[in-house]
Structures are given as structure tokens and as C-alpha cells.
């Protein structure tokens, strides 16, 4: 015996049904958005760890020289400029691309064989990020490898001397930067008192951004070492990480070795 719906039942069912359908589709859309954001954040966390590890490892195994090229523009300046280094130990001019709002760092890795490398930010066809380039006199064309994408800012400073609070240059030779064919000395460094005051370590900081805009609001400004950094308002979520590494040639002071 067939029993169809009555009009009231039909209306009731239709009303409930459409309400629930709207609610469930909303919930599902929310779920999908949430998961997408979540995976972006996960990727961000992974990349910050990778970048931190890369910097820490390389710095910790670097023995000798560290020379800093300072940022020349305000953050964010993501146009890479070609930067030449004229560094006597490297013989030839070596060059690399570098975001002008970030610092760059030349490392001398240790022991028997001297190796030079530079940490810098640059833009390649597949995106921008933290890159490491080995500089050498033998290989004329060494390749800059991008280690971690989406790094927007990179800052270094020496672990300052306890008494004078000054930041030091570790190498005797001064370095000159040739930017747009303008040669100038690196500013803000006291390269005269090297042997008396070797720097103990390096502090670094970087800002990493997600690849896509996400719903979670990011910080409207970052405060790093007395400088306020205002990120662009593009919906990307950013994270500021800073850390300290001691150079391997440094003798561990007695205070640290006691338990």
C-alpha cells in the first residue's frame, strides 16, 4: 500500500533537508579550508626547522672567518641585486644575487682545506629563499643552491663582546662590496681590533612566509634587535626565528663547562 508524503510532511522535510544541506556543506567547506591552512602551517614549521638547522649546522662547523654584509634597504625588498665580493683569499671576483633588505655572510669552514661559502637570499626561477653558495678560487662557476624556499629576511650579528658591546670583524682583511659597480666598505663593523677581541659566535634571525595566504592573521610587525620590521599585508603568515651559534674555534668558557 503506497503511502506518499502529505504536503505538510513534504514542506517539513524540505525545510529541514535544505537547512541541513546548507549546514553540512558549510561545515565541509570549513573543513577543507582549515585543512589547507593547516598544511600550509605545517610546511612553514618544517621549513623554519630546516632553515634553522642549515644555518646552525654550517655555522657551528665553521671555524674561522665570518664577515658580514649588511642589509642596505628596508624590509621587505625582494629584488635581488648582483653582489660582487672582492676578497683577496678568493682571488677572482665572485658574485651572487642577494636581497638588498637582508644580510649576507661569508663563512670559512675549517681545518685542512679552506673552504669559503656564503649564505644569502636570492630569487630563482622556482622561487626565492635561503641559499648557500660555495666560493672558491678553483671553481670559477660554482652554483648557488637554494636550501629553503620562502625565507624573506636574513639577519646576522656577531655575538657582541662583553665589555664594549661592540660587534667585531674576525678577519684582518676588509671586504668591499661592489653593488651596481659602486665599491664601498661594509659599514658598522670594527675590523681593527681583531686579535684582541675575537667574536665568540653568530646570532642569526630569519623570517619565513607561507606560500599561500591563509586565514590565520599574522603579526602586524616584528621586533628584532631593536628594529621594527613591518611585513607586507598580503595575507601570508610569517614567522620570525632567531638563534645563537658559537663558532667552533672558540674555547668554551669555564662558566659553560661547569654543570
Amino acid at each position, binding site marked *: *500500500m*503506497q*503511502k*506518499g*508524503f502529505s504536503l505538510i*510532511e513534504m514542506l*517539513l*522535510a524540505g525545510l*529541514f*533537508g535544505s537547512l*541541513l*544541506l546548507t*549546514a*553540512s556543506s558549510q*561545515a*565541509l567547506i*570549513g*573543513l577543507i579550508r*582549515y585543512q589547507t591552512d*593547516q598544511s600550509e*602551517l605545517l610546511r612553514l*614549521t618544517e621549513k623554519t626547522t630546516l632553515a634553522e638547522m642549515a644555518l646552525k649546522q654550517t655555522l657551528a662547523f665553521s671555524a674561522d672567518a665570518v664577515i658580514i654584509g649588511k642589509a642596505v634597504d628596508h624590509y621587505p625588498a625582494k629584488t635581488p641585486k648582483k653582489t660582487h665580493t672582492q676578497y683577496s683569499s678568493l682571488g677572482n671576483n665572485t658574485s651572487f644575487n642577494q636581497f638588498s633588505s637582508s644580510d649576507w655572510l661569508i663563512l670559512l669552514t675549517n681545518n685542512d682545506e679552506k673552504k669559503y661559502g656564503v649564505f644569502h637570499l636570492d630569487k630563482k626561477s622556482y622561487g626565492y629563499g635561503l641559499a648557500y653558495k660555495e666560493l672558491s678560487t678553483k671553481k670559477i662557476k660554482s652554483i648557488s643552491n637554494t636550501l629553503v624556499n620562502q625565507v624573506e629576511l636574513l639577519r646576522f650579528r656577531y*655575538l*657582541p663582546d*662583553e665589555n664594549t*658591546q661592540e660587534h667585531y670583524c674576525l678577519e684582518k682583511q676588509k671586504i668591499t662590496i661592489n653593488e651596481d659597480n659602486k665599491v664601498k666598505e661594509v659599514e658598522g663593523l670594527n675590523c681593527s681590533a681583531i686579535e684582541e677581541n675575537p667574536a*665568540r*659566535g653568530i*646570532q642569526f*634571525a630569519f623570517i619565513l612566509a607561507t606560500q599561500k595566504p591563509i586565514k590565520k592573521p599574522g603579526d602586524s610587525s616584528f*621586533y*628584532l*634587535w*631593536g*628594529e621594527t620590521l613591518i611585513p607586507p599585508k598580503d595575507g601570508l603568515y610569517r614567522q*620570525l*626565528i*632567531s*638563534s*645563537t651559534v*658559537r663558532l667552533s674555534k672558540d674555547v668554551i*668558557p669555564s*662558566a*659553560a663547562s*661547569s*654543570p
Partner: protein
Amino acid sequence: MLNSIHSQGFTLLELLLSLLLTALMVMGVTQYLLVSSRIQLIMQQEALASRTLESLLLQASFSQQKKAAVKAVLSSNTCPSNLSNNSLDLTHWCQALHQLPQLKVKSSNTLLSLEWQSLGRTRRVSRQPIP
């Protein structure tokens, strides 16, 4: 009853039952989102607290002066205004003060911990104290 041979088409009860199931599913999804975002928040806060402690303890291990400076910062429980003059890297400490509600530093002989209130509970991250 649901699939008896004689009935053709849904009865109202069956229809309502299926709607109820959908409602339950929606509630499940909402609940998942809520719980998941809470976990995410807590994880982020814990990561920040651990980073803060790690960075301060690492710097305290460098020298006696740094140790005193770190201790002073921890006991003051504020972000110093003249950061540029400060030789310590307090980036994470200031972020933690800003982002973790009611942040407190508890230190004893055996533990140094950061405590903050989050989602109605006291959360804590502990490390070895500065010697």
C-alpha cells in the same frame, strides 16, 4: 522497517532519521575543527615557550655576565624597551610575553619553567635551571 517490501518511498520517520545522521556528521566535523584548532594553538604556544627557554639558556651559558643578564631579564618579566642596546637576543622572550597570556617564570633549584594560562588551564614548559 526501513526496507520492507510493502513500503515504497520513505516514510517521514526514515527521512528524519537520515537528516539526524547528517546533523550528527556536521556536529562531528565542527567538533573536530574546534578540537584541532585548540591543539594547534597549544602546540604553537608550547613551541614558542620552548624556543624562548632554549634561546635564553643557551645565551646564559656563554659567560658570567650573560648569565646575570638572563637572570635579570627572567626575574623582571618584561620586555626591555631598549633592545638595540642589549647584547642579549630577546626576540623570542618578547614574543612570548606578547603571545602567552599571564606568562610567569618559576624557578627552583631543580627546574626553570615558564607558566601561562591557555584555554582555562595552566600550561608549563620546564628546563634545567641556570647553574
